[in-house]
């Protein structure tokens, strides 16, 4: 794992303007899907992006892959600003940055065979000329599929197998960074594990950098080095995995962690104390002033409504277990407070 910064995202914004009719008036409004986020991904590193539905995770992924153009901010890939490149200028980037999609059903063209799905990227980028078929078979093997299935249609595969095809497609161009937008959310637990294992294996073997989007904290914890927690288009807490899981400081991160049901309850561990949030996520069209989380926050005070808390270094740079550890840990709350034990420790012996 070298220390080379692969991707640097600074103050990224994506607003979707739209018109809405309110009574007799036509109002212009914007969905602030992503509203100023910054993060970096180093080579071989995995960044997890978590947050509730609609907080802007997919939008971020689409911006980073440049399937969408940011409203503001910048994206640098290997030091090159790719924020506003035109489609034809993006060719190189298209090779280096790939995406794995959430839905294994809709992300494969039902009209193409596996073979043609996998040769398309090779052809587009002129890779392995003349030996495309061989390369496709390699790829299939790499993701654990039978190379003989090259002439099958996606409909003839199960969800897990399809997701593998999607992964193979992303790998075909030999990218440096893969953005995986909820790659396992649509899969069943038993299959999910298969795919996660595959991703981990590939990451390690090919030294890939990942941005891993998910809402399942367990999966993220399993897979990522760093985690960014998003809420309504903003990053509220960002840091090394350990810090986030073991010493979360932002109330939202804490709520998220505590809300996840825990199977360990069944193993005799007392159910953790759950932080109950009231109300629903506000609309990104009209986000609350100041701190966006304040409407659901139990710690909210006047200042939260007036000032937007900046993303700053976490106060207590200590881990739950009392050992001091360095590493990245940023949070954005006016009243940060370390809360440990939100995640139960598992007893390894049965």
């Amino acid at each position, binding site marked *: 794992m070298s220390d080379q910064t692969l991707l640097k995202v600074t103050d990224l914004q994506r607003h979707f303007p*739209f*018109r*809405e*009719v309110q*009574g*007799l*008036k*036509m109002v212009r409004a914007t969905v602030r899907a992503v509203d100023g986020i910054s993060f970096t991904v180093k080579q071989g590193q995995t960044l997890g992006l978590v947050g509730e539905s609609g907080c802007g995770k997919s939008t971020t992924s689409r911006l980073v892959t440049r399937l969408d153009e940011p409203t503001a901010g910048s994206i640098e890939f290997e030091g090159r600003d790719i924020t506003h490149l035109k489609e034809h200028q993006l060719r190189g980037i298209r090779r280096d940055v790939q995406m794995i999609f959430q839905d294994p059903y809709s992300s494969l063209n039902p009209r193409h065979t596996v073979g043609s799905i996998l040769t398309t990227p090779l052809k587009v980028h002129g890779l392995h000329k003349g030996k495309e078929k061989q390369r496709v078979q390699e790829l299939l093997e790499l993701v654990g599929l039978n190379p003989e299935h090259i002439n099958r249609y996606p409909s003839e595969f199960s969800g897990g197998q399809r997701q593998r095809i999607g992964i193979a497609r992303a790998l075909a161009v030999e990218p440096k960074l893969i953005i995986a937008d909820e790659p396992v959310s649509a899969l069943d637990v038993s299959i999910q594990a298969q795919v996660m294992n595959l991703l981990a294996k590939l990451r390690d073997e090919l030294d890939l950098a990942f941005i891993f989007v998910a809402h399942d904290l367990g999966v993220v914890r399993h897979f990522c080095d760093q985690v960014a927690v998003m809420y309504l288009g903003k990053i509220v807490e960002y840091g090394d995995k350990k810090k986030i899981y073991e010493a979360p400081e932002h109330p939202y991160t804490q709520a998220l962690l505590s809300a996840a049901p825990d199977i360990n309850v069944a193993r005799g561990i007392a159910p953790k104390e759950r932080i109950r949030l009231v109300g629903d996520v506000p609309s990104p069209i009209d986000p609350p002033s100041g701190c966006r989380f304040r409407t659901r926050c139990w710690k909210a005070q006047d200042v939260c409504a007036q000032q937007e808390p900046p993303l700053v270094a976490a106060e207590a740079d200590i881990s739950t277990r009392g050992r001091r550890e360095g590493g990245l840990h940023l949070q954005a709350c006016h009243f940060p407070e370390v809360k440990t034990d939100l995640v139960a420790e598992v007893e390894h012996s049965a």
Partner: protein
Amino acid sequence: MLIYILRRLALALSVVLATMVSAFLLFFAAPSDPALALCPESKCPPERLAQISASLGLDRPLRQQFFEYFSGLFVGRDFTYAGDTVHCSAPCLGFSFLTRQSVNDELFSRFPNTVVLAIMAAIVFVTVGVVTGIAAAVRRGTAADRLIVGASQVLGAIPYYVLALLVALYPVILWHVLPQFSPMSEGFGRFLLGLLAPALILGLVTSASYTRYTRNSMLETLSMDYVRTARSKGIPERTVLFQHGFRAAMSPILTILGLDIAYLLTGTLITEQIFGVDGIGRRTIQAFRSQDLPVIMGSVLMTAVIIVVMNLIVDIGYSLVDPRVRLS
């Protein structure tokens, strides 16, 4: 809502305008000579023809005619005729070449006939189509379903004008089962009765496609989760079908209805011709025979307006049926 309607109206207006311009160019610029149509073949020396042309205003440059026609539409225009100047106020469609009557009057006076015919036909095809469509959907896969679908297919496959002609001839003329058309001036009841036969046949034939639309739409909504929810509430099946199923199945039918207005008007054209209903369609065909351009233009405009307005109404109705439509 208001803004939406205004915007839609503006769009509709642009469509109607474009229709008018293209129709004008089509008809007036086309190599046709309405004067010839008015001049009997055996007695038509050239100077007579020129006189008729001049009297119709067709001797002036096309650009001038175009300008006059369109200014007539928006601000009205003056006609000089037999030494008199007559003002024709906006929207002025001009005067019929043939009857010398105001096209506005000619068409508006016939408008009710066409509209009543269309509405009666619509009542027929909507009720027949919807009822049979629902019946078929509910009995999907049974013999009854196949019968309904089959019958509607067969009905739709026979050339309409042949069917209409048979109806016009046998039940109406020869057997006297159904009354003939009589104008509104001879009593509204008789008028309605007279439209029964044409409306029935037009409605029945049109209903064929509505049967299928309804069936498909119904099948689709019946497979929706919310219908399952409705059923799980233990409410009577009838309520499930109509309040939950059909209510939602209606919007696609409504959309198609909007799109179909143009075809319905085509249908009235042929129907009016065959049943001798004195409506816009028949007048238009007449106008074609005599190259009566102002009347043809007028009826193009009128039909375009009807279609556009109906689509607007359908759109608004759509939003009434479906609360999700935010009209934006």
